[in-house]
């Protein structure tokens, strides 16, 4: 009940840590093969380096066919191949386009059609590791396009100034084109604007703790069946005691075990993880909220275990059904794969899992610094779930004449 969940949290957090880092903080390795004979290829390389999104690896000694091999050898996740005539073609393109603009506004002769037809756009080749998700590739491509646009616009401006008889573009105009981007202010929507970036620890520690709490179904459910079959329930019926009190006592013990699991696993996340270079677990400042979510998750887990035990006829049935149902609930509820990466229909289905609402409660506290207004929904749903399990348990034991 304690050791196995701990091992699970350690293993899963370590495994998922690098995956989360790719999304959050790790730089993508970008191989640049710059065969450009001019200077524009280098400019692009410098601009990409300044984005701080990539870990740039420049290797100009390989040819086009070898780039693919470099990716296959996992030397880089993405690669850019800049062809030999990149600057030349870019210059030609911007000169002709500048002439076209000048001709259009009547400041120059018309452009020779042959020149337009012979115009070959510069090409850059982008390679990516197939494991990289499409949406991530599109983000990288958009970033490259954005930097290419700046180079192209600067060249265009130089062409226009040249067509108008100037030697060069004034420095202040050049800089304002390059630097004058419309600012986008990033706002992270946590309640107190305190940004806590989701990482493997923030997801895995609460998620697998909840899984461990619910996995008690194997122990408690089996215990209930055993008592039904051994005749303990029958003996208890002949005693001057309230049977509800006995069931309640059992639940209190298991709830206590669940709370101990939380304290132990969370403590490991806070104190031990940083020592082995895993992200530290950051818990909410809303201590009462955290306590209530822990308690309500424990009650939901214990109630479910009780229900499984009461409806099962044999210990094998209880163990099998209990364990598999928790694995399904965990998968649906976002224990293995966080809900935000699930397709929309799965997000809707995941709401059927009690584990989803437990995780939602912890996410609300740990990542969104949620207040009571945001917590009421998971608390209410888990209370209804627990109550339903308790009612089913009561009715089943009553039907079996055990209480």
């Amino acid at each position: 009940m304690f050791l196995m969940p701990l091992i699970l949290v350690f293993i899963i957090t370590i495994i998922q840590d690098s995956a989360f880092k790719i999304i959050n903080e790790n730089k993508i390795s970008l191989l640049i093969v710059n065969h450009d004979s001019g200077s524009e290829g280098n400019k692009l390389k410098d601009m990409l380096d300044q984005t701080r999104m990539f870990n740039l690896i420049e290797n100009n000694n390989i040819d086009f066919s070898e780039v693919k091999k470099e990716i296959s050898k996992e030397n880089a996740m993405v690669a850019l191949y800049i062809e030999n005539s990149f600057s030349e073609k870019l210059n030609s393109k911007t000169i002709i386009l500048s002439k076209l603009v000048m001709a259009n506004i009547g400041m120059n002769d018309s452009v020779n059609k042959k020149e337009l037809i012979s115009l070959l756009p510069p090409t850059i080749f982008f390679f990516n590791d197939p494991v990289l998700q499409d949406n991530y590739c599109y983000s990288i491509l958009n970033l490259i396009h954005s930097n290419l646009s700046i180079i192209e616009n600067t060249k265009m401006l130089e062409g226009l100034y040249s067509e108008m008889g100037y030697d060069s573009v004034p420095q202040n105009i050049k800089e304002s084109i390059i630097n004058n981007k419309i600012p986008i202010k990033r706002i992270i929507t946590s309640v107190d604007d305190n940004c806590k970036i989701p990482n493997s620890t923030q997801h895995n520690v609460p998620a697998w703790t909840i899984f461990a709490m619910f996995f008690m179904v194997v122990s408690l459910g089996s215990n209930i069946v055993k008592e039904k079959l051994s005749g303990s329930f029958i003996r208890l019926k002949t005693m001057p005691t309230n049977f509800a009190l006995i069931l309640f006592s059992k639940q209190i013990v298991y709830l206590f075990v669940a709370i101990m699991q939380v304290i132990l696993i969370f403590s490991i996340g806070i104190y031990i993880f940083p020592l082995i270079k895993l992200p530290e677990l950051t818990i909410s400042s809303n201590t009462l909220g955290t306590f209530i979510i822990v308690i309500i998750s424990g009650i939901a887990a214990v109630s479910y275990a009780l229900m499984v035990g009461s409806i099962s006829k044999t210990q094998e049935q209880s163990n099998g059904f209990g364990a598999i149902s928790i694995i399904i609930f965990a998968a649906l509820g976002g224990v293995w794969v966080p809900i935000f990466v699930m397709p929309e229909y799965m997000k809707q289905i995941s709401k059927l899992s009690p584990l989803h609402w437990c995780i939602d409660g912890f996410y609300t506290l740990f990542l969104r610094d949620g207040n009571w207004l945001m917590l009421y929904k998971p608390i209410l749903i888990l209370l209804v779930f627990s109550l339903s399990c308790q009612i089913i348990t009561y009715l089943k034991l009553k039907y079996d004449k055990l209480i």
Partner: protein
Amino acid sequence: MSNPIIVIENLSKCYANSNEMSLDNISLKMDSGEKIGILGPNGAGKTTLISIICGIMSSSSGKVKYYIQDNEVTYKSIRNRIGFVPQNLALYNELTAFQNFEYFGALYRLSKKQIMIQYELLFPMLGLTNVADRKVKTFSDGMKRRLNLLIGIIHNPDVLLLDEPTVGVDIQSRNAIISFLNKINGKGTTIIYTSHHMGEAEQLCNKIAILDYGNLIAFGKTKDLLLQNNVSDLMLLLMKLTGEGFRDNV
């Protein structure tokens, strides 16, 4: 004249999804201090009858009356004076013998002191003192049966109901159990028990009730029943009254 402690009047039981009566219009009077054996072949209704007497099961019709010193009382008010030893070993295997004893004692609302007194009195009588701190899962069937019995009498009941208390035990344990039951009966506890062991029943019981197909076919003092039916022992009596046919279909 002896005092009645349990009186059964026209008791019938028909289980749901069954067309046959498990108990059919049974009437019995059990007096205080008696040792009554409820005997019969498989499916005769022995466990059903004992379950209704100790309140585990409800009857379809008829009544079980309980008495304390000739005054009729409700089951609820006498429940604390009834002990029950189920056929199944209703014990917690992960607990020690003493922990089981202590747990059930607490459920009977005995104080720690009362539990200790009972422990010191009862454990030696059934030879369990030396193994009191051992987990029940390490016990033999005989040891479990003896502990099962001790838990049934932890609260000094006036009536002790036992459902086949010696099933699957060796001759030594069986002998110890029967001697123990005789001893506590000597101190005033009424014994009502079911068994398939006729020799054991003959050794223990002064009154016998024989059930067959849910009907009470004989009830009286053991000696009188043997004389009336002209047989030498209970096995012959049972065979004479219930026949030699197998009861595999029940």
